[in-house]
């Protein structure tokens, strides 16, 4: 068994921008229908900031409670337009991201952050303006809408 703190897939194929652009203005409901009614996030995933519409390649991260190393590491390998998706197995004991990490994500060109964990610093998040969801994202993995898994535990 590996003692590694992180496994990182730093290179992965992203959806071409031209194809991604075709989805940008599509409502989520018809997209779900087009995928055989799969791919919708759990109802408990809700935005905590004003920006509720976004579209991008999923930069997925698996982390554990009380450890934000993996999400921070993902920031280094993000590309503009990515959506940072952080799975925590639904940890509700401590936040996984706050306004500082999400501010750095914004600086890296990440268009939104989605997590099944908790986020903190609401006032700071409002200033950052990313779309953030503090709820369950297990369906992201089950539905295989996550395109890649570049950073993994």
């Amino acid at each position, binding site marked *: 068994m*590996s*003692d*590694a*703190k*992180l*496994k*990182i*897939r*730093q*290179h*992965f*194929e992203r959806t071409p921008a031209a194809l991604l652009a075709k989805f940008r203005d599509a409502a989520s409901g018809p997209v779900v229908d087009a995928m055989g009614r799969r791919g919708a996030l759990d109802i408990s995933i809700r935005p905590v900031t004003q920006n509720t519409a976004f579209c991008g390649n999923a930069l997925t991260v698996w982390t554990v409670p009380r450890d934000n*190393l993996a999400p*921070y*590491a993902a*920031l*280094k390998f*993000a590309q503009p337009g990515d959506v940072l998706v952080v799975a925590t197995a639904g940890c509700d004991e401590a936040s996984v991201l706050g*306004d*500082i990490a999400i*501010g*750095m*994500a914004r*600086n*890296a060109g990440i268009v939104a952050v989605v997590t099944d964990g908790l986020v903190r610093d609401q006032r*700071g998040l409002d200033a950052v303006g990313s779309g953030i969801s503090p709820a369950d994202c297990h369906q992201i993995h089950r539905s295989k809408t996550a395109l*890649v898994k*570049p950073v993994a535990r």
Partner: protein
Amino acid sequence: MVVVPRTGAAQYERLQAVLEKEAAMEARVAAGVTYPDWLDGVLDGPDIIFVEAQ
């Protein structure tokens, strides 16, 4: 909501240290950094494995 002990002087001192650290980080974010300074040192360490996409 946070519960602080009635005798919270020590906690308040620690809070000041936390706020100072946060203010420094917020300044770094405002300057445009995309990841924390300490990350490169961690990623260069032996506990990080880089793999290619499957």
